[in-house]
């Protein structure tokens, strides 16, 4: 054993050797590292602590920079920590603080070692232990070592004291009860003459106050003193952060600190301090006009700097100030807008946020237009940022700032055609949402849907599929606003639609179904009236065309019938799909031609157009009826079934007869019913709708659904084979008759559901939108703003600046040709329920402990002030106090009066700025006279006494800054 140990000691590679070797290695880094780790594993077992510690040091290095696991060496780290030699000890501590975590088992072993080192006379050893504790302190460690940390808090060695102050943060966080022990010493350090201890203490309070500011409100006087007296920028920045948290809680405090903060802002040359002042003012003191004005001046200085950091921070500060003081942004709009084309993505993003903050209902149109153009030129990432922020801003609070929905709909269209657009999900949602909420926007929506759907190029872009799905839904749902439903139907069944994923094709199919029903119904109701009024077909020319067209149609129908044979169960194995797709392509083309020269008149559904449509849809649906997707199959069958019914029951239409026969009225009714079902308006549904349904009286909702199995036992779940798609030529499915039946059932069911729905609506009107008469809206709706005209070439920032400048400056409300359409809102219900952030129970414990201590003192202050003076404005803190505190305080009252010893404390409370100089001197004296045995509580009682007396003298300012 002795031999190898000596060899190891003599020939061990040091950390430096390792690093050098790493740089010169020829065997590859990972191979070198694994070799080194092997070596370390051997060396670390050595009995010689020096060898061990060097091995550990190497391992720490590898762990830190090369992600080598070192959790296995935890025990060796503990061994090194216990070495008496500082070098080994330090290596051990560094290794521990780097690799230990809550679940490291050897943590239990180090408590005593830490205790020993914390109490060591060697300040460097104590410092090591403190650093380690700050990093790996667990609940147990924090609890067990609280007394040692407490002792060190008043250590005469500044070096150790400041570190122990830093450690209290971790200790408090892990073990809130430590507050009861250490808090007063911590507060005492706020008065420390040593800048480093003060800085550390303020740092700790800054972190603590960030978690729960309310608890630290009673310490405001101490912080105020530091704010006014300190010359140390590090400290001032932290104190400002504390005040940024405290000021919103107590208006009088805010008033008090505003002036000193402004003073710092004016005076300081340090940008960091100045910026912190600005941020405090705009964030927490935004009610103080003059302070905000000064801050905005400073922000402007920042914005005009060349340093991108300052520019960024200036923009950031502006975005904080923007919600409350939009004038600040307007003053700096040139800079903001120029920053949109900054080379720095962060600055661009920040200025985009600001531009969006400037948006109002009067300038949204211009801003969006310019931004969309900007998006066209930007890199994809920023382009989507722009689009995203336009979308979220416009849709905020139910499209609050959108006055002209026709414009907005066309903007959505424009955005979806932006080359890099990846916001399809959001656009999809908004298209549908606008459709459901804004009745007046529907014609424009349908127009947009049409233009999106008929463009075959869009089908190739997978990012747009979601938008197309929304367009398809809109075109089906609001087909009554369409100028040309046939065109829509054609677009929906175009062959390239096969590029879409199934989930979206299904929407397409459903929309085809709706359009078909709508067209047939319109035609039938029209011929009904025609038949009553004017039995003649009006135009002889069109009649000739009719006959031609119908010839064509009948030929195709014939062909179709032949084709149909192929689907008969007998000849299943014939691979017909390929053929049929080709056929469809041809047929669709042919139909395209036909439909172009069939002049479609407004509100005119001619017989031949209906026949064409029906045939076209049928041709397109045939190949889909062998689809492997259940959803698609089902919807296709619905459509085919409907067509079958139409053809069989309406020979008048399909055999070129003019007058409808009596028995056909039956079908008429059917079609009407279905149409009614579809024209039932879909409204937005509140997210909380389900919760608001009252549970009916006799209904008991069981938590345990175990007996469901019993009930379900004899019910056989439909076996998947019935949906089997492996044999798509299921005779039953393909049989027209059964399809027919099925579709009849379908329609019955849907009519039934409509009536049910109507009944439900009657009973629970609360959950539905007010139903209004389905007023027909004329088709000659004013055209949307043509965004493309005019400014396609404008890409100069100057133009942008000008544009927005105009729109921003104009304070008057723009005149709109028509009033803003109604946007359906479901009042409170729709806001997303705010989940209260659950606070960490440890934080609660911590702030609870802090309050116990601080408010305990405060209660003394309060009660004594009440006793001392009859007419004192109620202290704001008394609302927070509970009876327990009050009782406590009355117990202490007598002693607190006795402990009044130091009259000069009173002066400290003076609020006059002139007094501050005096106060400082006295402060210096006091520190000198401070005897070590004095206890914090006693002191704060004295303070309380002092303050009560001041209140007595100057009842005007019942400020607890005193």
């Amino acid at each position, binding site marked *: 054993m002795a031999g190898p140990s000596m060899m190891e000691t003599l020939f061990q590679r040091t950390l430096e050797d390792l690093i050098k070797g790493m740089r010169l290695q020829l065997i590859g880094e990972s191979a070198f590292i694994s070799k080194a780790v092997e070596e370390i594993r051997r060396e670390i077992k050595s009995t010689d602590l020096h060898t061990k510690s060097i091995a550990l040091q190497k391992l720490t290095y590898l762990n830190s920079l090369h992600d080598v696991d070192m959790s296995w060496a935890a025990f060796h780290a503990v061994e090194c920590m216990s070495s008496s030699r500082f070098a080994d000890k330090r290596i051990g501590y*560094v290794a521990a603080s780097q690799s230990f975590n809550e679940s490291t088992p050897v943590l239990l072993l180090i408590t005593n070692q830490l205790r020993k080192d914390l109490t060591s006379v060697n300040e460097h050893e104590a410092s090591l232990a403190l650093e380690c504790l*700050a990093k790996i302190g667990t609940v147990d460690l924090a609890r067990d070592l609280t007394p040692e940390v407490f002792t060190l808090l008043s250590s005469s060695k500044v070096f150790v004291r400041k570190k122990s102050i*830093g450690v209290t943060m971790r200790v408090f966080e892990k073990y809130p009860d430590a507050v009861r022990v250490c808090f007063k010493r911590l507060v005492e350090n706020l008065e420390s003459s040593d800048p480093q201890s003060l800085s550390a203490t303020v740092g700790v309070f800054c972190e603590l106050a960030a978690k729960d500011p309310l608890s630290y409100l009673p310490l405001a006087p101490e912080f105020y003193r530091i704010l006014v007296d300190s010359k140390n920028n*590090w400290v001032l920045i932290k104190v400002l952060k504390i005040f940024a948290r405290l000021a919103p809680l107590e208006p009088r405090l805010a008033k008090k600190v505003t002036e000193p903060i402004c003073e710092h802002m004016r005076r300081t040359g340090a940008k960091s301090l100045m910026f912190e002042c600005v941020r405090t003012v705009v964030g927490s003191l935004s009610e103080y006009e003059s302070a905000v004005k000064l801050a905005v001046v400073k922000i402007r200085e920042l914005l005009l700097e060349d340093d991108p950091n300052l520019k960024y921070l200036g923009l950031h500060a502006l975005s904080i100030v923007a919600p409350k003081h939009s004038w600040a942004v307007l003053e700096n709009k040139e800079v903001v807008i120029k920053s949109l084309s900054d*080379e720095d993505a962060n*600055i661009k993003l920040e200025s985009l946020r600001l531009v969006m903050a400037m948006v109002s209902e009067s300038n949204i149109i211009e801003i969006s237009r310019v931004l969309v153009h900007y998006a066209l030129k930007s890199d994809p990432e920023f382009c989507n940022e722009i689009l995203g922020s336009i979308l979220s801003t416009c849709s905020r609070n139910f499209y609050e700032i959108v006055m002209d929905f026709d414009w907005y709909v066309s903007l959505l269209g424009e955005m979806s055609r932006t080359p890099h657009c990846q916001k399809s999900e959001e656009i999809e949602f908004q298209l549908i949402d606008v459709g459901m909420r804004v009745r007046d926007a529907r014609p424009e929506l349908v127009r947009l849907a049409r233009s999106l759907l008929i463009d075959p190029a869009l089908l190739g872009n997978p990012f747009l599929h979601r938008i197309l799905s929304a367009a398809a839904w809109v075109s089906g749902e609001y087909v009554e606003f369409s100028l040309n439903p046939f065109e829509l139907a054609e677009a929906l069944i175009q062959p390239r639609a096969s590029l879409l994923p199934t989930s979206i094709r299904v929407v397409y199919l459903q929309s085809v179904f709706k359009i078909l029903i709508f067209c047939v119904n319109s035609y039938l109701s029209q011929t009904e009236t025609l038949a009553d009024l004017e039995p003649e077909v009006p135009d002889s020319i069109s009649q000739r065309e009719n006959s031609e067209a119908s010839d064509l149609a009948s030929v195709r129908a014939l062909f179709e019938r032949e084709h149909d044979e192929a689907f008969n169960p007998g000849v299943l194995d014939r691979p017909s799909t390929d053929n049929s797709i080709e056929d469809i392509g041809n047929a669709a083309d042919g139909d395209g031609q036909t439909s172009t020269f069939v002049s479609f008149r407004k509100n005119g559904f001619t017989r031949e157009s209906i026949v064409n449509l029906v045939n076209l849809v049928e041709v397109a649906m045939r190949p889909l009826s062998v689809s492997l997707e259940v959803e698609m199959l089902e919807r296709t069958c619905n459509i085919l079934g409907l067509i079958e019914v139409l053809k069989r029951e309406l020979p008048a239409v399909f055999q070129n007869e003019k007058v409808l026969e009596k028995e056909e009225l039956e079908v008429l009714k059917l079609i009407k019913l279905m149409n009614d079902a579809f024209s039932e308006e879909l409204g937005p549904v509140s997210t909380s709708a389900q919760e608001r349904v009252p549970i009916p009286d006799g209904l008991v909702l069981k938590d345990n659904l175990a007996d469901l199995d019993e009930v379900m036992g004899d019910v056989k779940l439909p076996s998947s084979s019935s949906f089997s798609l492996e044999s798509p030529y299921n005779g039953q499915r393909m049989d027209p008759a059964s399809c027919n039946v099925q579709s009849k059932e379908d329609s019955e069911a849907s009519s039934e559901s409509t009536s049910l729905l109507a009944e439900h609506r009657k009973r629970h009107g609360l959950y539905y939108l007010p139903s209004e008469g389905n007023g027909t809206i004329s088709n000659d709706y004013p055209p949307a703003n043509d965004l493309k005209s005019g400014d396609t070439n404008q890409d100069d920032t100057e133009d942008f600046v000008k544009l927005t400048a105009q729109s921003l400056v104009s304070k008057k409300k723009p005149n709109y040709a028509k009033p803003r359409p109604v946007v359906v809102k479901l009042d409170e219900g729709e806001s997303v329920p705010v989940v209260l952030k659950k606070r960490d129970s440890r934080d609660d414990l911590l702030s609870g402990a802090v309050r116990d201590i601080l408010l305990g003192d405060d209660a003394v202050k309060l009660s004594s002030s009440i006793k001392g003076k009859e007419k004192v404005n109620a202290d704001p803190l008394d609302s927070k106090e509970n009876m327990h505190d009050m009782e406590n305080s009355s117990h202490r009252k007598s002693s607190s009066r006795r402990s009044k010893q130091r009259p000069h404390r009173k002066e400290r409370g003076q609020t006059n700025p002139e007094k501050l100089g005096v106060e400082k001197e006295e402060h210096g004296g006091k520190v000198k006279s401070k005897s070590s045995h004095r206890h914090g509580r006693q002191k704060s009682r004295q303070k309380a006494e002092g303050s009560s007396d001041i209140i007595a003298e100057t009842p005007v300012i019942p400020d607890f800054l005193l």
Partner: protein
Amino acid sequence: MIHFVLLISRQGKVRLTKWYSAYPQKERTKVIREISGEVLARGPKLCNFVEWRGLKVVYRRYASLYFCMCINQGDNELEVLEIIHHYVETLDRYFGSVCELDLIFNFHKAYYILDELLLAGELQESSKKTVARLIAGQDALVETAKEEANSISSIIAQASK
């Protein structure tokens, strides 16, 4: 508070890591990769702040080294830049016109100096002189220990135990 400190070379090599918030080992690797990707990609004339996972990374480049510190959103970015600069100056004072190689070969010393500057993610010593004095004190402690340990007699004594 500072969540972690990273020193990354221009080639993406990590030179120093120090974690003040708890990040498990796996997470650390990921964080380093993400941050070095973000920071190294940025051009020279851009601002020194990067928003990252709801936090902010403040970085500054000195020659071929990027010093990165990750802070909370509300923290003062300029202050952190000053802390970075303070650290670099302290290193400079210790090593005498510090360069990347100094940090590579004296990884542990850079580490100790950082420990004197920051504690629990807060700046705790703003005086370069004090830090230099403390580190010198520690070095002296180590040196005396080393001399003892390295004397041949003690090695032999240990070996023949």
